[in-house]
């Protein structure tokens, strides 16, 4: 156990102290704050434009403007209307100069009519049109001499609700609220299961190519060496992920907005549940262990660090396929292929996490997937240790997966 801790410390401390580790951690944490505060930042830039977006209204009757303004308020419109005494000619001049954005001429003939004048035709006038439409309807209702009751029923809004059949499904609104968080966490797990296992493979290959491995494994058993290293780098990963998680959580909580508007209405963070975080940590750990064992195994087969990437390729494909399923499944977490993939151990960390995060799954589903993963990790750990034991002693030019057999044969004799 003594040796385990020494290797563990050696795998952890020097890396945690490197500049690149500290800088990456700080940058990513800062990015979380930036993202959480995006709406605030956007509004700062938009704030300066707001003064110019006053709509000048020419109303010779003097009666139409108050009605218009009332309708805008009812519709909760951003448009600010202001009655003006200026002539149309002066207003047109103002638009050319840029001091006025647009003006509206209201006229009452047989019917209500309006003209909207702006510099270009692409400005959005939907809320102005619907305000005018409402005025028109009210006027018509008046001329028809409808009763109070008839008036009310005329303006009754439609009742529109979405309902879902599946029990595990969350409502559309709930889905949207969870999506942003789940997306970010899947992203983190994805990066983590690529980054840290790669680190392991590089380390192992490095120790082999610098030949220090022979000294190490004459001091400590290769299996102990492998697992201590995996644990050390894993702890480094947990530390980094914890910092990210904490930064993200603080960022959301201190952002001052509830992150439900605009972009965040479909990509929300308002449904932040503690279980989601717990599952994220759990699936990160499981995914890391699974891929780290695989990476150590592959790293032990090469003699030169240059060959690591080539041998890691099949493993990378597994992770990339997992991420493709997860990212495509974020829009439809109930699709059959997502369900099936969530039980395949190499995909579980990303895909099952997606389902746990997006759906109200019965607890046995993630537990079953976790059990399958644990069994796979155990099996792979046993197999990996056997390959590793022989692999670290093996030097040669051919670097292919066929070497696994050679490594086992060499390790077997031990």
């Amino acid at each position: 156990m003594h040796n385990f801790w020494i290797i563990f410390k050696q795998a952890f401390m020097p890396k945690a102290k490197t500049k690149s580790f500290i800088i990456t951690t700080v940058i990513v944490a800062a990015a979380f704050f930036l993202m959480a505060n995006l709406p605030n930042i956007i509004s700062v830039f938009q704030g300066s434009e707001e003064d110019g977006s006053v709509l000048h209204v020419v109303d010779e009757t003097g009666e139409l403007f108050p009605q218009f303004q009332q309708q805008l308020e009812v519709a909760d419109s951003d448009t600010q209307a202001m009655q003006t005494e200026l002539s149309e000619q002066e207003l047109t001049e103002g638009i050319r100069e840029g001091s006025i954005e647009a003006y509206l001429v209201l006229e009452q003939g047989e019917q209500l009519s309006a003209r909207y004048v702006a510099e270009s035709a692409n400005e959005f006038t939907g809320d102005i049109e619907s305000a005018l439409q409402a005025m028109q309807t009210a006027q018509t209702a008046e001329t028809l001499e409808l009763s109070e009751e008839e008036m009310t029923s005329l303006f009754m809004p439609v009742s529109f609700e979405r309902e879902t059949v599946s029990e595990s499904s969350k409502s559309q609104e709930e889905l949207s609220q969870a999506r942003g968080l789940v997306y970010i966490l899947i992203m983190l797990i994805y990066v983590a299961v690529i980054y840290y296992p790669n680190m392991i493979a590089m380390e192992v290959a490095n120790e082999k190519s610098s030949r220090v491995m022979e000294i190490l494994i004459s001091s400590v058993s290769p299996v102990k060496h492998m697992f201590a290293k995996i644990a050390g780098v894993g702890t480094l990963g947990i530390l980094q992920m914890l910092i990210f998680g904490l930064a993200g959580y603080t960022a959301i909580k201190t952002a001052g907005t509830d992150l439900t508007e605009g972009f965040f209405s479909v990509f929300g963070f308002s449904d932040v549940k503690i279980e989601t975080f717990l599952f994220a940590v759990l699936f990160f750990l499981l995914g890391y262990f699974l891929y780290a064992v695989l990476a150590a195994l592959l790293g032990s087969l090469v003699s030169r660090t240059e060959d690591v990437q080539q041998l890691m390729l099949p493993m990378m494909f597994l992770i990339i396929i997992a991420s493709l399923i997860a990212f495509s499944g974020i829009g439809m977490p109930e699709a059959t292929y997502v369900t099936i993939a969530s039980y395949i151990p190499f995909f579980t960390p990303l895909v099952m996490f997606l389902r746990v995060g997006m759906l109200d799954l019965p607890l046995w589903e993630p537990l079953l997937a976790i059990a399958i993963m644990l069994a796979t990790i155990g099996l792979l750990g046993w197999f990996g240790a056997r390959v590793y034991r022989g692999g670290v002693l093996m030097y040669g030019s051919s670097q292919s997966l066929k070497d696994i057999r050679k490594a086992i044969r060499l390790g077997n004799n031990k």
Partner: protein
Amino acid sequence: MALEVKGATKKFGGFTAVDDLHLSVDQGQMYGFLGANGAGKTTTFRMILGLLDPTEGEVRWNGKSITYASSPEIGYLPEERGLYPKMKVEEQLIYLAQLRKMPKSEAKKQMEHWLDRFEVPHYATKKVEELSKGNQQKIQLIAALLHNPSLLILDEPFSGLDPVNVEMLKSAILDFQKQGATIIFSSHRMDHVEELCDDMSILDHGKVVVSGSIREVKRSFGKQNVRIKMDSELSGLADVHGVENYTATHDGALFRISDETAAERLLEEALKLGKLRHFAIEEPSLEEIFIAKVGKAYA
């Protein structure tokens, strides 16, 4: 017997790397392995270290088989030098000693002692990749003996060193032996084995071709050299019965003879030729034995 190897055989598939190796080294002795590249020296060492299990036979250290529990007692200098290139000398020496279960403070003290002894104390804070090859080798040797092992295995400890450093390392290794350590080392420099070792063996293609104490090895070789220094033409003496080989030297000739009676006949014949300045029977050098046993191609 401190270290005993009984009939160790190692097969890789159909290939036999080491064949029925017997070996016994007493506590405090230095044992030498001679052998060409690929003769099975490294595989033998790996079996002794427990990195490889023998296909047949066994290795015993003080009566027990070697496991990772005995790792603090063993020091190893691999033929392919291996240190972390980007790690500082002191960091890695202490790390490697800690892996052999030496406490950190003790490791630090020992490290300072050895760095001083090899006259490189200022390298403690340098990265290994910044050091010259010879100095890296000193660090490598320190890594092998820092934790005070009682069994030290050195695979080609002097290759690639200049003569001054060879002497420095040699004396350090001899001192280490005097403290009671059992040392096994391999070399293809015969003179080093001749100078340092008590017992030795020559390996060829996994088989021991010669083994024993150096004196025994030389005696059992049976062949000796006769050196004659005189001014007369000596090529005629090559035909004397028992002479295997004749080599002219600048002041006489060197004869390899198959037995001692040939020396007497040579002396008689030489005296007939004129005035004899020098006549000596010399033991064969290990180099000659090695070449005779293993073949000229490897020398």
